[in-house]
């Protein structure tokens, strides 16, 4: 229990320890701590910023996608309209072509009919003249009786 010179020695020991802690232990540890705190704060801030940017980018992407979808729909609409038009036009042209062909064919038929009728008339006239000649027993001069023949031919 007695207090003696040990007391002085203990003071010296403690002062040395205190000086050592104050100079070599607390400053570097506290510095590292403070630096890390700052780093973490910066990291958190950066993360928040990144998140915000990401959100913004997501919004932009959404808008772009919406726009693209609209445009695609537009294009599809246009294309189907156009194709309908083309099909319609093709149908129209096919119909008119058909009509034209039918008309041409009719004309041809009429022409052929007329021709055949002409030929037939001529042959009938010829035949008539010849049979008339035979009946009369003499030659009928076609030139002299042309008027009668022509009249006859028109009657057939």
């Amino acid at each position, binding site marked *: 229990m007695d*207090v003696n010179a*040990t007391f002085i*020695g203990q*003071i010296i020991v403690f002062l040395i*320890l205190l000086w*050592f802690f104050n100079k070599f*232990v607390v400053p*570097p*540890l506290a510095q590292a701590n403070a630096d890390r705190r700052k780093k973490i704060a910066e990291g958190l801030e950066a993360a928040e910023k990144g998140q915000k940017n990401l959100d913004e980018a997501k919004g932009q992407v959404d808008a772009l996608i919406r726009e693209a979808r609209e445009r695609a729909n537009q294009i599809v609409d246009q294309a189907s309209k156009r194709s309908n038009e083309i099909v319609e036009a093709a149908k129209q042209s096919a119909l008119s072509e058909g009509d034209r062909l039918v008309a041409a064919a009719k004309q041809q038929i009429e022409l052929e009919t007329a021709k055949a009728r002409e030929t037939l008339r001529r042959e009938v006239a010829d035949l008539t003249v010849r049979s008339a000649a035979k009946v009369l027993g003499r030659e009928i001069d076609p030139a002299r009786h042309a008027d009668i023949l022509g009249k006859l031919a028109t009657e057939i």
Partner: protein
Amino acid sequence: MATEHGAGHGASPTDYILHHLTHYKVGEGFWTWHVDTLLMSALLAAVVGFFFWRAARKATSGVPSKYVGFFELVLDFVDGQVADIYHGDRRFLVALGLSLFTWVIAMNTMDLLPLDLPGGIAGLFGAEYWRVLPTADLNGTLAMAIVVLVLILVFSLRAKGLAGYAHEWVAVPFGIWLAPANLVLNLVELLSKPVSLAMRLFGNMFAGELLFMLIALLGFTVVGADLGSALGMVGQVLMGSVWAVFHILIVVLQAYIFMVLPIVYIAMSEEHH
């Protein structure tokens, strides 16, 4: 903690306890040196300082290793305590609190060593006595308390100036006309702080140490293979264990008190009355 008894040290229980309460001394009168206290405290200061120094050297702002993390945890704890109490540049006070806290824990922990082990080891080197617990020596605790007292004075003078502090001594709390009463009261107030600090730690650790010794005395009842001896042995092991576990609390608690109170005193000393 108590080992199987050290009856070889002394013939009777009284001798055993007296032997364990005697310092290894060098010198005469006031100039007596307790070699055990000085050596143990210096050794533990070196150990504590070394571990913290290694941690401080490795500390970076990056991811801390587990080793550094542990010491940063201790520093953070002390820093938090100091920050709660003292509002100002607290770098020095953190160093003060940290050195007190860790050093006192290290010294108090010596109480948990087997009671006769340190003395036995010291005996191998020719030391007849060896008290391993520097905080159960009033010199050890008083030394820290005196340093704290000086710091209180330094901080008071720094905050208030010589005139302001002197005025406080003679005029507070009763006014200038009762200067003698003020002086006496202030003196008592000032001195009570280091004295209570030193006595509290010393008393706790001394009592703890003494109780370990008393528990160890149960070993004296072991004389042979009879019921009394068996009871004595079981009692010693059981009570020694229980007290050791409880003592862990005291070790840390007293160190914590010895860290916080000086900070409180210093913070108070800067306040103007």
